[in-house]
């Protein structure tokens, strides 16, 4: 696929990626992001495509971007986890930026099954290279899905789309780590369609240098007694740019639903741009939606506690940065994604600190061994 990304190839502008469910003033430039991507050149090829049921799964990046990914890759991959099966081996989507990988994946987790899905984005893209992943998950009733996304590019741009459909009592837990990339757009939509379906989602990021991170989080709560908990925290250093949209949509009929979103941003760079659009949409009365955000520096309480243990403000900022990579390594469910996080940590923090956590906690990074 590398030749598709050659600089000479034709390119397409995806104009409205990561559009939130409710938009606001256009002059704020917060309603979407655009990406220049290679024009698909697969005309005439017979493509493997996913079962139709995935077409109905809404993704966070929007239709325009999702259909581009589907048309830009020739090999859609379908994985099914049989009813009642607890699948031990994680389903891994391996994206190497160096070869401009673009993948379309559909996972059907049948009734009562459990699966771990990993998206690991790593490597340095060739000039202005683009990598992309579209992952759609259908979780049937009582299914349990763990999703870990580690986006840890050394350079290049990446488009990361996820859509999840959760039936009755399905439980989805998501961990997203945005650890690097010149321009990264991540959009995830989770539809809690069934009764008592629930989502816990934790997102961590470090954006530095002149990197740009654009995130769209959308939770559609349709089912009764659905629950969503979204926690996002990150660091903006140097001249980083970040846009974060978070929408909890409490839809008519979702009696007893609750949705909570919390965002904490630590700003350490003098030249940053930090945009946030935390939205709650509601047309149901028997619901509770909450949002909290705090943008700025480390709280005085935390600084006081850390100082009492010998950590200065500057060291505290370094600790918070390190913690993001450590946390990614700790929660990476297999070696490829862990290696991706640690490789990026090495570039950002230096070798000693990067590898410390794996050594101290005995985390395996041996990709061969695992394979």
């Amino acid at each position, binding site marked *: 696929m590398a030749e598709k990304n050659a600089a000479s190839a034709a390119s397409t502008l995806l104009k409205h990626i990561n559009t939130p469910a*409710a*938009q*606001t*003033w*256009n002059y*704020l430039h*917060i*309603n979407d992001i655009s990406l220049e991507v290679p024009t698909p050149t697969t005309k005439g090829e017979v493509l493997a495509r996913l079962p139709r049921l995935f077409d109905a799964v809404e993704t966070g990046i929007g239709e325009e971007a999702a259909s581009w990914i589907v048309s830009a890759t020739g090999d859609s991959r379908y994985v099914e986890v049989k009813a009642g099966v607890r699948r031990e081996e994680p389903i891994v989507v391996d994206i190497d930026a160096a070869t401009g990988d673009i993948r379309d994946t559909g996972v059907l987790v049948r009734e009562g099954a459990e699966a771990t899905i990993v998206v690991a984005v790593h490597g340095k893209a060739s000039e202005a290279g683009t990598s992309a992943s579209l992952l759609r998950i259908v979780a049937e009733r009582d299914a349990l899905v763990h999703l870990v996304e580690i986006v840890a590019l050394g350079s290049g741009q990446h488009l990361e789309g996820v859509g999840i459909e959760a039936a009755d009592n399905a439980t989805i837990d998501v961990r997203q780590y945005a650890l690097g990339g010149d321009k990264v757009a991540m959009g995830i939509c989770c539809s809690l369609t069934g009764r008592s379906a629930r989502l816990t989602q934790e997102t961590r990021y470090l954006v530095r240098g002149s990197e740009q991170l654009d995130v769209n989080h959308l939770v559609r709560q349709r089912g009764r007694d659905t629950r969503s908990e979204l926690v996002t925290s990150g660091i903006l250093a140097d001249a980083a740019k970040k846009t974060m949209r978070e929408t909890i949509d*409490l839809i*008519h009929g979702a*009696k007893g639903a609750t949705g909570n979103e919390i965002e904490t*941003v630590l*700003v*350490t*760079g*003098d030249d*940053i*741009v*930090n*945009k*946030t*659009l*935390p*939205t*709650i*949409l*509601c*047309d*149901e*009365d*028997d*619901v*509770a*939606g*909450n*949002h*909290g*955000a*705090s*943008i*700025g*520096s480390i709280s005085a309480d935390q600084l006081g506690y850390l100082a009492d243990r010998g950590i200065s403000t500057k060291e505290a900022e370094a600790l918070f940065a390190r913690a993001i990579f450590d946390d990614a390594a700790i929660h990476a469910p297999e070696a490829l994604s862990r290696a991706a996080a640690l490789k990026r940590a090495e570039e950002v923090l230096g070798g000693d600190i990067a590898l410390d956590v794996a050594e101290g906690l005995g985390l395996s990074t041996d990709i061969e061994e695992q394979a």
Partner: protein
Amino acid sequence: MSETPDKKRSEVADVDRSLYDFVMPEEGYERYADGLTPDIVRAISAKKDEPEWMLEMRLKALDAFHEMRMADNWGPDVSALDMDHISTYVSPKTKQARNWDEVPEDIKTTFERLGIPEAERESLAGVGAQYDSEIVYHNMREEVAEQGVIYSTIEDALHDPKWEPIVHQYFGTLIPMRDHKFAALHYAVWSGGSFVYVPEGVSLSYPLQSYFRLNASGAGQFEHTLIVVEPGADLHFIEGCSAPKYYEANLHAGAVELFVKDHARLRYSTIENWSKNMFNLNTKRATVGADAKMEWVSGSFGSHVSYLYPTTILAGARSRCEFTGITFAGATQDLDTGCKVVLNAPDTTASVDTKSISKDGGVNTFRSSVVVGRKADRARATVSCSSLMLDDISRSDTIPAMDVRNATASVGHEATIGRISDDTVLYLMSRGCSEAEARTMVVNGFANPVSKELPLEYAVEMNNLIKLEMEGAIG
């Protein structure tokens, strides 16, 4: 209290209107043709005998209006608004009076029923009353005038050689005519409104109040309010609006430009109770100097569709902004309200606290933006909004945007949406309250942090409104 529930309900379906829903005949009025043409704009300008620069501005704005488009990706639908069927200028054939006895009987009755002359006697330093397109009454207490305070119509100020340059200096500078389509419309056909000038160091101990009444059907009101509060001065300005209900769409596209200089303070209170056929597309903006403070208190109850986001630009170091607002959306209402704050200087602070209540299919959208610029070292902003859903056919959306570009700034935001908790109602009922009383109590408690900021007569009115709306809800 002897009515049957059914009767009561039908009454309260539009209950708060009883106070406002009376129509005065339009006979003997000067009404310009519907629609928008350069001729109409020239006619308005000629009638007002304006300086040339104002006419030029109007004609430029008219071009801008025809050229500009509404955003198609957000906001309530305004397609029902047909400018070809809105009269932009309707004027009662009367001179502006300084004494209520000189005001024509029907208009005087209108304002008496709204309680304006009474409030003037009791608690105001001055009153302006606009009826359709023109101010019909303007008066200020002697002692306030003696301090050098000016409170007049913009038209009068433009005819005064002393004040014409001041108006020229400020008018249209804070809200650009190309700000949005209806700002352009406003500048093309504006009429009426107030000019307030508070000299350096002068504090008014009583508020000034302007009341806007749109009586004509199928008409627009486009008043322009221009307030300059010089350094160290202090003013509380109150704005009230209402209209009777028609089936034909009415339009309000006013503009408010507020200049708050260093160390000055301005409190701007608004109670908007337009009828439910009104498109309220109003624009308000304040610029605030060093160590100065801008306070907004905003109650939005009426109108069919509202787009209303008072904007504060904290331009001077240590300037502050407080915004307190409540919006009540009932049947057929789609109210998109909120505020914008731009923090552009060091040590500026902004706090926004809003409440919204939705019922009977009403739609509330809280929309805000907090922008912290690069120069705003140590700026602090907090936005807090809570929304109460009184039934499951209404809607409440919260869309707050934040754009922070300074590492030393801190911005906090919290939002909650929910309904009256059953536990609370049960608790109050176990203490002997009826369910209706209990729910009313909870809603009043919810609104209280805002209503206590309102001028007294409006706070009482708001509580009554909630009570009636709630009784309607329980039936």
